[in-house]
């Protein structure tokens, strides 16, 4: 160990660090112990944990409200809650899950923790901005929680006008302020990632030596930067209209209600890829590690991430085929939406080809990854059904849509998040969880998820509209099945919360590289030292330098 390189950065901040602390237990978790050292930290790893704790709390709120929604739907006559309470429950579920869990989930935790480690940097480019983005996030969360405590919101997470501006009698404005503020935290995080990936790569870490995880986060950051300002503008106009009757969307004041939908989906469709792309990055790390084989088609997978992030800006109109947009626009948005299938297929087929002739270990992260591929494929292809104009005229705004986007967001993002959590848990905490429990919960989540959401495809095709508290009795059987599945899913979620927390104190200590994986993050001790690298990181000549390599001709790595 050369202590000189370690202290380069450390010396600036902590001139009196005794040599004996360096490399001995001075990992980022134990470097300092005060509350102040957590809440005012600029260490990307600690900020990642602040985010992890916050989004886990929001996940619990979102999951409990989802459970209450499923409880209400066990009976068709809406006797469990009043209609208003039910409407508030699904609104809180949607708002919290989308803006306070799914969007920050993987980027703000794993992205924050891993991007500097993966590219061989000491921190993100703007550590203070990184901390500020967490405070901005919590400020937005505060406003949204205030609206819930005061009595809730009943507009649905989509805030369609003029319901949200002129007709709802609930706490819409604080909720909108909260969501608007959270957007700024996304923008700051995206900016930080883009600058970091451009300027802070270790010597020799060229673009085509970066892990796919970094590529997908780069693509995600571009969406953060380019799409989020649009929703910010739209939400501010919404607040202005509700509070000051400035006519933008409400026809009573000369506005156009469909304009809001255009602005909303111009952000919210790309936001789907904010949720999906980081998950694809996680899966692209897990699959090669557990197949011990180089990722198949590396460059295609990398370009596919950028491709998805680009195409996604041109498909927002597919949410509005029956909402009064022009027929020509509908046809154009339909065919453009089919184009999304191209980069998505690249990802799935390349993961499958990576498994081919590998040497597979079916540990917990790999089980999540395999579950992810199956559910993402189904979610993606049902997305094409919805992009088909004639089918959309029937299943728009039914449970078919609900099932489709839960396959993408739970089957995709949540499974990738849990897979990533299990994969990098030893690195983050320095502890191993109990493998058997990990596998059991992965199975429970996969089974529970499918029992919950597959019946909803059928319900939707039968014509059950979404956001219905009272529904016709012929739909009851499938609704009970779906609610039963959600209890299995709930058990699957509770298990990891218990055994992962347990492992922090009682788990076996983790080695630097427990999965025999490649990538710079596995070259540092677990948990990593406060300043990441003890020696100057050396970029590998080839990304995913695993023992098994398919000889791919027709192109070469730089």
């Amino acid at each position, binding site marked *: 160990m050369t202590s000189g390189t370690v202290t380069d950065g450390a010396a600036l901040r902590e001139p009196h660090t005794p040599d004996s602390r360096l490399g001995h237990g001075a990992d980022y978790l134990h470097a300092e112990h005060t509350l102040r050292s957590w809440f005012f930290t600029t260490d990307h790893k600690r900020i990642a944990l602040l985010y992890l704790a916050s989004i886990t709390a929001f996940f619990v709120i979102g999951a409990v409200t989802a459970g209450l929604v499923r409880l209400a739907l066990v009976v068709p006559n809406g006797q469990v809650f009043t209609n208003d309470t039910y409407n508030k429950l699904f609104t809180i579920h949607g708002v919290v899950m989308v803006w306070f869990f799914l969007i920050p989930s993987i980027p703000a935790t794993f992205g924050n923790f891993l991007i500097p480690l993966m590219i061989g940097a000491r921190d993100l480019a703007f550590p203070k901005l990184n901390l500020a983005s967490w405070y901005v996030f919590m400020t937005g969360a505060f406003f949204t929680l205030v609206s819930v405590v005061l009595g809730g919101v009943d507009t649905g997470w989509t805030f*369609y006008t003029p319901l949200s501006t002129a007709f709802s009698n609930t706490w819409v404005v604080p909720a909108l302020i909260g969501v608007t503020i959270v957007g700024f935290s996304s923008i700051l995080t995206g900016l930080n990632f883009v600058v970091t990936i451009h300027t802070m790569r270790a010597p020799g870490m060229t673009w085509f030596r970066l892990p796919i995880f970094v590529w997908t986060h780069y693509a995600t950051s571009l969406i953060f930067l380019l799409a989020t300002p649009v929703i910010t503008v739209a939400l501010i106009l919404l607040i202005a209209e509700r509070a000051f009757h400035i006519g933008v969307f409400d026809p009573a004041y000369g506005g156009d209600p469909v304009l809001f939908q255009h602005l909303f989906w111009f952000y919210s469709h790309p936001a789907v890829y904010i949720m999906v792309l980081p998950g694809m990055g996680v899966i692209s790390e897990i699959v090669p590690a557990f197949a011990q084989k180089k990722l198949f088609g590396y460059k295609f997978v990398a370009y596919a991430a950028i491709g998805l992030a680009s195409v996604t800006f041109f498909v927002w109109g597919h949410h509005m085929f029956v909402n*009064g947009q022009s027929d020509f626009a509908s046809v154009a948005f339909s065919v453009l939406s089919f184009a999304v299938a191209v980069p998505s*297929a690249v990802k799935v087929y390349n993961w499958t080809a990576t498994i*081919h002739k590998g040497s597979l270990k079916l540990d917990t992260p790999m089980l999540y990854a395999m579950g992810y591929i199956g559910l993402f494929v189904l979610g993606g292809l049902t997305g094409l059904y919805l992009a088909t104009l004639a089918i959309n005229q029937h299943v728009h705004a039914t449970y078919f849509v609900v099932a489709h986007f839960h396959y993408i967001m739970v089957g995709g993002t949540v499974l990738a998040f849990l897979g990533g959590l299990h994969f990098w848990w030893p690195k983050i905490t320095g502890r191993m969880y109990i493998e058997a429990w990990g596998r059991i919960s992965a199975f429970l989540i996969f089974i529970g998820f499918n029992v919950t959401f597959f019946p909803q495809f059928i319900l939707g095709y039968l014509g059950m*509209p979404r956001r*219905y508290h009272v529904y016709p009795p012929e739909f009851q059987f499938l609704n009970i099945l779906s609610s039963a599945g959600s209890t299995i899913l709930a058990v699957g979620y509770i298990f990891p919360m218990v055994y992962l927390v347990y492992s922090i104190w009682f788990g076996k200590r983790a080695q630097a590289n427990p999965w025999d994986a490649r990538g710079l993050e596995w070259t540092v001790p677990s948990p990593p030292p406060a300043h990441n690298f003890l020696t100057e990181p050396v970029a590998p000549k080839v990304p995913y330098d695993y023992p098994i390599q398919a000889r791919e001709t027709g192109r070469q790595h730089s």
Partner: protein
Amino acid sequence: MNPTDLALQLWPAAASATAVETDWLILAFTVLTLLLTVPVFVAITWFAIRYRQGEEADRSHGNTRSVLIEISWMLIPFLLTLIFFVWGARLFFISKQVPGDAMVVEAIGRQWMWKFQHPTGQSEINDLHLPIGQPIKIRMISQDVIHNLYLPALRMQMATLPDRYTEMWFKADRTGSYRLYCSEYCGTDHSKMDGNLTLMTQADYAAWLQNAGAQQGGQAGAGRAIYESYGCGTCHDPGAKVRAPSLAGLYGSEVKLADGRTVTADETYLRDKILNPNRQKLAADYKQVMPAFRNVIPNDDLDRLVSYLKSGRATAQQDASP
């Protein structure tokens, strides 16, 4: 067939040729989906077993023509799915070309009821009776927020907007009773904004129009829907949060007013109280909190609402409601 007959349904009834073709479209798309996904699922499972660590297996790789492979699995599934884009777009365009001889039905959506008006002038609330074998165009608008008229048996829906007319057309070919819904979330009682679509032969439809079935239980029956849509029950139903006088059995009774007078609750009294509750005539022991409905409730609705309150059904309905 009555839609409530079945506890478990797996395929929705189709009442038009377009609905049947939409079903074929989704079935054919499902076949393609299976062709594209089953190999992936089988491959992942097979590889997981065959190449599990410690299993003896041939792991040697020849030269893989990866560019060729990548291009083919990018383009082949895409081109196959485009067939369904074209098919779906064709059906969509047919659904936008309204035939010249279509019968025009007007629909108005509002929180939380549908009102339909037939070309011969009859109107009905929440339920819609239509003839088969005849192109029908529904021209619709909303009085408040965005709603969406959804007729699953015809595989059709269209938003009703507050600022302009939208339309949908279809030609049904199977009689029966089917559901109709509002599918765009529109506030508190969104899930109660549904009703029945009854498709009848042209002769039955003509007879139904004649027999004033369109009145749907008369003015009073429609009045109940209006009572709900204006949220009267939020304050006036027994057990409501805001304490307001019960309307059960009000009509014809003697009402003691706050200024000591006693009046008979006749039709004029009901009208005055709805349109301008602030004027006077405040019932004893109550505070003035009710908003005025002058310029809010149209005259035809007010007639129905008063009929409903007069009918005495307010008692039975309110006792029955949870």
